[in-house]
Every structure is written in structure tokens, then in C-alpha cells.
């Protein structure tokens, strides 16, 4: 199989680095319900890693474990070579893990620009008094980060709406703004929870292009959940398949596609 330390080169010539995050034997229970049962997988630097599975398989729970919303009863999360202690979501974010949500979680009352600027939270550290007076370090920092944010706005082609309140935007654009906000954090790992849910074909194509471009341009490691099989198979380097909280497949899209367990889970299996 894969070399644990080195990494590999994909068919299209992209370099995939060493493991950046590893989930070890994660088990998550809600009372008597077992949402995730003893799952292990890893995410490598620079790859696009998909998590797929039928409804209720525990995909979103898995993402919530990674981003610190849920704390698994058993198992360990290893990040950048160290075991991660139980953390609050904002502490996870400060370690460089950004995410988007299945149901858009933007700040509706703020403009697109302000929404994306909030993503720069990690990079903006000027103190309270500096901000109160605005001049000096606070202003310099604001302008420097504005430039970085404008690059991302350019990249995702949302320049024309930068001053529009997010509440007024259509769904597809909101999804893109949310991606922009996550990207603005310059994350080590970007988690996307169903980035294409509820989109038409054209919007899906746009979004796929952006995801690939992000990965290509910034070398961002991406872990995504998606239901559209075509999209998943085209985009991802490796795929984890979950069903009823268990891992039933893990590998390249081709390996997963020919895995009998996966076919059974998706197409159903005859019970005699």
C-alpha cells in the first residue's frame, strides 16, 4: 500500500505529501446510538479526500469530530504528528482547520467582504486599543488582510458582490462566499460539508472547478463530504466510504468503485 511517511504522486502529476491528520479508532455515541464505530483513516497533505456514504452513515458526525463539535468517546485524533487533546471548535479553527457547512452558516447581516474578512481572524492580532484608535498597526493590518481577502474574492469571482449584504444573495453564491471565508483563513485542512448540495449542474461544475483550483493553486488539503458520485469520483484522490457508522471502503476512486461492500451499500443487497 502507501508509504506512511513519504507520500506519492497522482496520475495527473500532483505531489501528495505525508499524513497531516490521522483518525485512530474513532467511536462516537449519542446515548445508545452509535454514530461512528471504530473508524480509522488518514488525510495526506495536498490531497482531496472524500468521505461518502448513504444518508445517516455518520459522515457529518465525522466532520464534526474533526472540527471539534463532537468529542469521540474512544479513539484519537492526530494532527501534524501530535495527538490532539479535546478542544473547543474555536481552538481547532486556530490550529488551521477551516470548514463550510451543509446548511450555509454565513453572517447574514454582514457584507460579503466582512464575511470573508472574518475568516482572517487568525491573521489579525492587533490589540483592543490599536483597533479603537484605528490608526497605526490596526489600520496597516486591516489593509494588508484586505489585500489577501481581495485576492480570494478575485479567485472565486465574487468581486461584483463584495459590498452586498449576504442575506440578499442567491444560494449558489452564498455557497461560494462560504468557501471564500474558509479559504481566507489559509487553512492547513479545508473541510467541505456537501459543497454541492442543492445546486444545478452548472453551479456544480463551477464549484468543482473552484475546489480543484484551490487545491492546485494554494496546495490546500481538502476533505469533503458529497452525495454526487460523479463529482466525488472525478475530484478526489482517495475516498472513504461509510455505512451505518462503519468504514466499508477506503482507497482511490477506482478501488472504491469496484469494492463489493460499497456496491452493496449503495445498490442494496438481496436478503434471502
Amino acid at each position, binding site marked *: 500500500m502507501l508509504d506512511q511517511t513519504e507520500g506519492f504522486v497522482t496520475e495527473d502529476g500532483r505531489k501528495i505529501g505525508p499524513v497531516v491528520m490521522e483518525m485512530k479508532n474513532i467511536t462516537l455515541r449519542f446515548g445508545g446510538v452509535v454514530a461512528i464505530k471504530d473508524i480509522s483513516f488518514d488525510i495526506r497533505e495536498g490531497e482531496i479526500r472524500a468521505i461518502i456514504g448513504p444518508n445517516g452513515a455518520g459522515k457529518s458526525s465525522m466532520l464534526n469530530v474533526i472540527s471539534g463539535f463532537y468529542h469521540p468517546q474512544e479513539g484519537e485524533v492526530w494532527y501534524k504528528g501530535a495527538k490532539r487533546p479535546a478542544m473547543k471548535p474555536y481552538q481547532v479553527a486556530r490550529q488551521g482547520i477551516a470548514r463550510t457547512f451543509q446548511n450555509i452558516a454565513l453572517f447574514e447581516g*454582514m457584507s460579503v467582504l466582512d464575511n470573508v474578512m*472574518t475568516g482572517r481572524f487568525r491573521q489579525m492580532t492587533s490589540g*483592543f486599543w490599536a*483597533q479603537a484608535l484605528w490608526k497605526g498597526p490596526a489600520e496597516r493590518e486591516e*489593509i494588508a488582510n484586505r489585500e489577501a481577502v481581495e485576492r480570494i474574492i478575485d479567485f472565486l469571482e465574487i468581486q461584483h458582490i463584495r459590498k452586498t449584504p449576504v442575506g440578499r444573495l442567491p444560494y449558489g453564491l452564498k455557497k461560494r462566499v462560504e468557501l471564500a471565508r474558509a479559504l481566507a483563513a489559509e487553512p492547513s485542512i479545508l473541510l467541505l460539508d456537501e459543497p454541492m448540495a442543492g445546486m444545478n449542474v452548472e453551479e456544480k461544475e463551477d464549484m468543482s472547478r473552484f475546489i480543484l483550483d484551490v487545491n492546485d493553486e494554494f496546495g490546500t488539503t481538502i476533505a469533503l463530504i458529497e452525495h454526487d458520485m460523479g463529482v466525488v469520483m472525478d475530484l478526489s484522490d482517495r475516498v472513504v466510504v461509510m455505512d451505518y457508522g462503519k468504514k466499508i471502503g477506503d482507497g482511490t476512486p477506482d478501488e472504491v468503485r469496484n469494492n463489493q461492500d460499497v456496491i452493496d451499500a449503495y445498490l442494496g443487497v438481496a436478503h434471502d
Partner: protein
Amino acid sequence: MLYREAGDFKTSYVADSQTFPIKFDRYRYYAVLIIGFAFIPFVINDYWVNAIFLPFLIYSIAAIGLNILTGYCGQVSLGTGGFMAVGAYACYKLMTAFPEVSILIHVLLAGGITAGVGVLFGLPSLRIKGFYLAVATLAAQFFLVWLFNRVPWFYNYSASGQINAPERTMFGVPVTGPETAAWAAYLFCLVLTVFCALIARNLTRGMMGRKWMAIRDMDIAAEIIGVNPLMAKLSAFAVSSFFVGVAGALFFAVYLGAVEVGEAFGITKSFLVLFMVIIGGLGSIFGSFAGAAFLVLLPVVLKLVGVDLLGWPTDLVAHLQLIIVGALIVLFLIVEPHGLAQLWRVAKEKLRLWPFPH
């Protein structure tokens, strides 16, 4: 035609992120400042200062404070009156304990002390939201008023239970006490109001304000991008209480001169400031001014029209005022929940295209 952005290009992010990006707005703002500082002090008399300008300026500061907490950070507070009382009593204790220190420093310190008290009463906001938080701050309101009534140390064991502002000067001119000239009291409050508004504006357009608004709009998403909800909420309580405390100190020291806590800083004060914020516009510094102006001017205008012009009895006009304020609040909540500030924004958008809307 009058109000337009066309041709008003920005070539730097500095120019784009200033407080008034549009030239017309900027000049209007300078004009207001010049009139406020260089014209009004020479023409006002006692009636104008006490009926309109002092309450307007002081309530503006209080409204900005509450707006930061409720409008920007989304934490409802009914404790404004109580926090104003903290500012007033802190200022009184400082004024009597250190008579040689400048009154300006006392007012700012009173704001600082109120900020500390505000943080203390803001702690429940980490666990409770919405109506429940409103009730918790209501407890603060009643507790603080009770405290200042019952503990004689706060009013220096005076027989009446009142606190009286001793005479204090700035640059040799008295700004508190019975000898105060109208223009001196006005200028003193104006300087503090402009100072508070600038600080509030800078905080709300920067990262601090974005943190608050993120908590207001969706606290879960705010947490996921790295905002510590504890720090964001408590900082909003601190900054908000600072402004409210400054307003309370001015209300007592400059405006009223003598205060009985239950009367001056009761629950009605909390509601009055909340109404200002709602009518003016949640989440807008301009709205705080507009709301304060509206609720300060309304009784004055009603009295002018009702008593002086139409000759109605005073008590009838006073009752009418209650009815009108109540009706207006209901009307605003239904028609324009974002208040006067939103009406102003809509008017500007229309003006931008006028007279050719297509």
C-alpha cells in the same frame, strides 16, 4: 443628483475602508462637526442646553453603548439604567474622594468601573440567550438600584440619600455644579460624545466589530472560524458598559447635578434607551444618534405644538406623548425593524438614482 457615488473612485483600500466613503457624506460630517463646535456654543442658552442638547448628547452615548451590545453583538440588555447608575455613583465617589483630579478623568474612570461591573453581569450571557438573558440583565437593573439605595457609603451618608455633584472645572471653567455656563456643559458633553462615537465606529468597522456581529448572526459559525465566544461577548459587555457608564456619569454630574437613584436610573431609563436603539436602528452608530434625537425631541415638539400652540392642558399632552411613543414603537417594529438608520439608507439608495430611477 445631490447624493452620488459616480465619479467618486477609490484607488486604495485605505480610502475604501474609511468611515464615510462617499464624498458628500464626508463633507456633511465635517459640516456637522464645525457647526457643533464652532457655532452652537455661541448661540445657545440654558433652555436649549437643558431641554435638548445635553439629553441628546448624553443619551446618544448611552444608545451607542447599548447598540454595541444589542445591535452589534446580539445580546439583549435591560440593565442600561442600572449601569448608568454605576457610572453616576462611581463618578460621584471619585469626585468627592479625589477633588483635585480632573473631572474628565473621573468620567472616563467611571466608565471603566462600569465596564468591570458590566463584564460581571455579562457572565450569564455565555450560558443563556435571548429573553432569558434579558431577564438576567433585568436582575442587574434592580439589584444595582437597590444597592445604591441601601448602602449609605455610596451616597456618602447624606441625609437625603441623594448625591449632589460638587463644582468641578475644566481649564478654569466650571462644567459641573450650579455655576456652570450652558456652553461649557454643552462642549464638555460634545467632546465626550464625539470621542465615544469615534471609538465605537473604529471598533465596529474593525476585527472587534466583525467578531461581535459574527456572534450576533450565527454563534456556531463564529466559533468555527476561531472566534472565542467568551471573549467576544464579554468584550461587548465591557465596551458597551463603558459607554453607558460615561453616559451615566455625565447624566448625573453635568445634566441633573443631583440624583436620587430610583428616580433617575430606574427601569424606565433602561427601556427609554432600548427604545432609542430600536427606533434609531440596531447595529448602526448613526441610528443611535437618530434614536436619541427622536426620543429627546418628541416631548419638546409635542409640548410646543400641544401646550403652546393649541393651548391643551399639560397633563393631556404628557399622556398623549406616552401614547404616541408606544404607537411609534409598534409601528417601527412592524414597518421598519431596522429603524431610522435603515430609512436613511433606503433614502440614500433612492437619492443615488434620483431623478432617473431606470
